[in-house]
């Protein structure tokens, strides 16, 4: 008992000094460091620029700047970023099915996947000494794929994008898009109004004269004979003979519908819209019409004749450029400064990356 008392007293006596020592210690040595809160990145960021888009069933893929590949499995509601073995800008994607796809991009890079993008592998691509930038890729049956790009690069793969070979000697102009007609003929367009055609699956290529000298950015065919090519400053060309002769179309755009339509942003007349650059054009066979996109939120549409074109802005204040179109059942999905869905009845929905 007495022991206890002494202990308590001793405790009481020593406590104040412990407190003083503690205060001194805190006062001299404790310096808290700032701690920030964690931030979770979204799949789609403000800085993103998507150049290529592909869809298969309800899955969507988009590829873009800084080696970014995103995929959505629910028609664009939610997205996830896939890990990629490069940080080069990726320019386009083509798919065979939900598992197999190929991507091309800067520095002559091609990537392929066989597991829906869980893992991406670098393909074996031929390179030249000047500039290697692959811009467009298309996938066809039995693992065949074609890609075009800067310095006249034209390459082909027969193993689902794993290995590639030159299909033509490089030349100093840029090829922007390649397509296959229904009858198997290959047609590519590019800089200075270049048009190349091969009727023997890439063995020989012939140059065709275009009625313009500016760059052609996009091309697509409705069937084996009717096709549209589009390019800078609103150039639209039509062919009815599989790409051998071309004529300018789209003069009918001059009717001033925009001024009476409040949904058309700041385009004060059709003239403005048609002089915008067109970056992509596709034929949508299910919806039986042509779709096109370009700078400053431009959309284009035409009936199967490919002559009566309409144009406008996706949304009054959406001035983002788009460089790629992919067909879905009720419209098209677009990739560019933003990603979104453009429906057949002209509703524009921007995908937010969750």
């Amino acid at each position, binding site marked *: 008992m007495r022991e206890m008392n002494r202990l308590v007293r001793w405790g*009481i*006596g020593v*406590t*104040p*000094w412990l*407190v*003083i020592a503690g*205060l*001194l210690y*805190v*006062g*001299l040595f*404790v*310096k*808290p*460091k*700032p*701690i*920030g*809160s964690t*931030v*979770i*990145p*979204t799949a789609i*960021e*403000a*800085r993103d*620029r998507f*150049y290529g888009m592909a869809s298969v069933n309800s899955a969507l893929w988009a590829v873009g*700047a*800084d080696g970014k590949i995103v995929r959505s499995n629910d028609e664009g509601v939610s997205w996830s970023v896939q890990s990629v073995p490069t940080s080069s*800008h990726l*320019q386009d994607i083509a798919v065979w099915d939900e598992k197999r796809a190929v991507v091309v991009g*800067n520095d002559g890079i091609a990537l392929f996947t066989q597991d829906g993008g869980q893992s991406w592998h670098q393909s074996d691509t031929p390179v030249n000494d000047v500039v290697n930038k692959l*811009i467009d890729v298309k996938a066809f049956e039995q693992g065949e794929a074609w890609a075009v790009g800067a310095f006249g690069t034209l390459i082909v793969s027969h193993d689902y994008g794993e290995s590639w070979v030159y299909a033509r000697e490089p030349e100093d102009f840029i090829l922007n898009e390649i397509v296959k007609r229904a009858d198997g003929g290959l047609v590519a367009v590019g800089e200075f109004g270049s048009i190349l055609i091969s009727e023997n699956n890439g063995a020989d290529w012939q140059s065709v004269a275009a009625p313009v000298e*500016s*760059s052609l*950015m996009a091309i697509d065919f409705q069937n084996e004979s009717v096709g549209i090519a589009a390019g*800078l400053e609103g150039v639209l060309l039509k062919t009815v003979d599989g790409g051998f002769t071309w004529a300018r179309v789209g003069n009918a755009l001059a009717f001033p519908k925009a001024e009476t339509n409040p949904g058309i942003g*700041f385009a*004060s007349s059709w003239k*403005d819209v048609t002089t915008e*650059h067109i*970056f992509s054009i596709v034929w949508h066979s299910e919806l039986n019409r042509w779709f096109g996109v370009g*700078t*400053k939120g431009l959309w284009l549409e035409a009936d199967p004749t490919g002559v009566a074109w309409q144009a406008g802005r996706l949304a009054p*204040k959406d*001035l983002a*450029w788009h*460089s790629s179109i992919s067909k879905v059942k009720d419209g098209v999905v677009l990739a*560019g*400064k933003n990603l979104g869905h453009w429906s057949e009845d002209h509703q524009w929905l921007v995908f937010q990356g969750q």
Partner: protein
Amino acid sequence: MSRNVASWLIRFRVWVVGVIVLITLALSYSAFNIEVKTVFQDLLPSDHEYVKTHNKFKDTFGGSNLVTIMVESETGDIFQPHVLGAVDQITRELQKVSAVNPFQIVSLASKKLKEVKASTSGIETKPLMWPELPETEAELNELREKVLRNSLVYGPYVSGDLSSTLITVDFIDRLLDYETAFTEISSLVSAIDVPGVKVRVVGDPMLYGWVNFYLPETLNLVLMAGLILVLMLFVINRTWRGTILPLISGFVSAIWALGISNLIGIHFDPLVIVIAMLITARAVSHSVQIITRFNEEVEKIESGSESVSFAANATLSELLRPGILGIATDACCVAVVALSPIPLLQKLALLAMVWVSTVAISSIVLTPVLLSWVKHPRGYAHPINVSWLIHRLLDLCHYVSVSKMRYVMAGWTVIVFLVCGYFALGLKVGDANPGSPILWPESKYNQDSAAINSKFQGADRMFIVVGEDTPDLAKTPEVLQSLQQFQRFMEVQPEVGGTLSISDVLPSVNRTLREGNPRYEELGSSQDINGELLYMFEAGAEPGDMDRFVDTDRGNASVTLFFRDRQGETIRTAVARIKEFIDQNPLANGEYQLAGGLIGVIAAVNEVILSGQLQSIALALLILVVLCTVVYRSSMAGMFFMVPVVLSNTVTFSFMSYMGIGMNINTVPVAALGIGLGVDYALYIVDRIKQELQNGLDDRSAIERALHSAGKGVVITAFVLIVSVLLVYQSSLKFQAEMGLLVALWLTVSAFTALFVMPALVYIFKPAFIYGDTNSSVPVSRKTAEVIND
């Protein structure tokens, strides 16, 4: 000793008062000439890494005094002649504003915003809208198209919906005077009287300008508070001496403090007025204690048998110890603030220390000396008597302290301490809400700020410098790539509205060169190509035009981060992320340097405050404990007086946290003064209990006597001060209002603790330093007690 000092002071009272009057007169000239202003340089901890970077690069990459003006079109977009006219007029007029850096005025109407165009003849760079304004529909459309094409303009300088545009202007820091800048810009902006055009202005010069703008109002409020104080003192004390002497005491200490401060070259920051009030409150409260004690001593004197000077002498000698101890703790606690590396806080600590110290003269010495001249010590100036009410309250205090209730009180204290302590941990460093905490959310400035932040990427900027002093490093692909990655990384944080660097410029130049093809919106693959792109952007530019992005020899590049708010949390997160990025992405050549611009500077200040926060609280407590230990020659005394201090501060901090008041450069000094503030009342009461015990009273009576004398002073001052301080809540400056509220809370809690908790604790624990060594002291004190009781 205190007895000797007291009698000496009373004996030479004419000399004492004469000297004090002379010094007051001499200092009043200097006091009335003190400069009232905020000096920008004083706000920065100049040794901090960020501030060094800021000072090194602010002339190139933009200072922290950027003023942002938003011109908003109420109908339609900005591409209308009258809107663009307003932009042009403001841009021109800004050149005439004092201390403006003419090379840092950026708007649609300045030469800085350009468009790069590829044409058949090559690359053309020309200002968007300079020197001539577009007039025709076609010209306006052309300008709109140019803006839409230009990602350096559309977004950063023209809002997404095209309804508003920004003009930003920076100042030459060393020439800048906030008040002048505010007046000149305000008159410039109000001169824009164009229907359909709305102009909003934000930026630190404007913010501090508003503080100055409300200075007269603040002074009026302070005067009103003073008036109410005097009135209430008169009603409650019922004597002229009880009214005028506290006032004289407050006045003299203010004159001395301001006079001395001016002499040693310290100016008066308008936001510091709360601190002035706080210290004046101390002076008044000490003075009231002395007068209350004096009244009591007068009661004891047989009428006519002794002079009032005896009463004055007794008062002085009894109150010297608690009075001086209270002032010493106040002064030392606030001195701890001077350890901060921020010059403003150092100067403030010095000012407060001088001020608090002068209270020793003005209250503890001057008041009793003046009292010794009182002619009719027993008379009252008016018949209204409220003192029964006060004594009823004090009876309650006594009941609580000596009944079983004392355990309840002690228990409650512990609970309150724990609960408030928990909430106090939520106290934030830095601003806790968007908008400036100095002004009310509905003030014009905060409204403007919210409007600008909702339309644009954010009005507050931080810049990070990448590079080193080797020329052309900023053109290397490695640095440019790293910048892009860095920007992408930083933009993930939602409060970072956007980022801008040379790495954004070059890709868009490249795209322009490539027929506007977005697939070529990318950096060059080599230093030479990037150099060429840069050269093309600069072609036709004036020297200094690239300053926003790179320095003259291209050795350093900047990334500007735009922040939507300047909350402490936002800035901490951003800085932590910047450091994370640097750690994970080391550069082979060059390095990242944090951080300039307003947000960079605030980050530095917040870090300094955070790292010093615990330190200053611990050191202030340490000083308190040591002083009490020394004065009462007992280590337990130190522990004992920690109770009111810790309690009042915990409650106040939890209240700050609840109200969303963050610890920033403005609140830190108030908080530091508050630490010392908690103890004064308790000192007077406990010291009195000790005296009465020494005089031989039993502890119940000693506590009763102490509460009804010293406690009465506490009730009076606390009540009077709380009411007058609350008046400041009417201030147009939210900061003043909140600080008024805080001071009131501090006073309430420390008064409550002194009246209810401390006596209860005394009665429960019976600490030896109060009760004394009973065996030896009883005979002596019994005798004294008999003398008094006779």
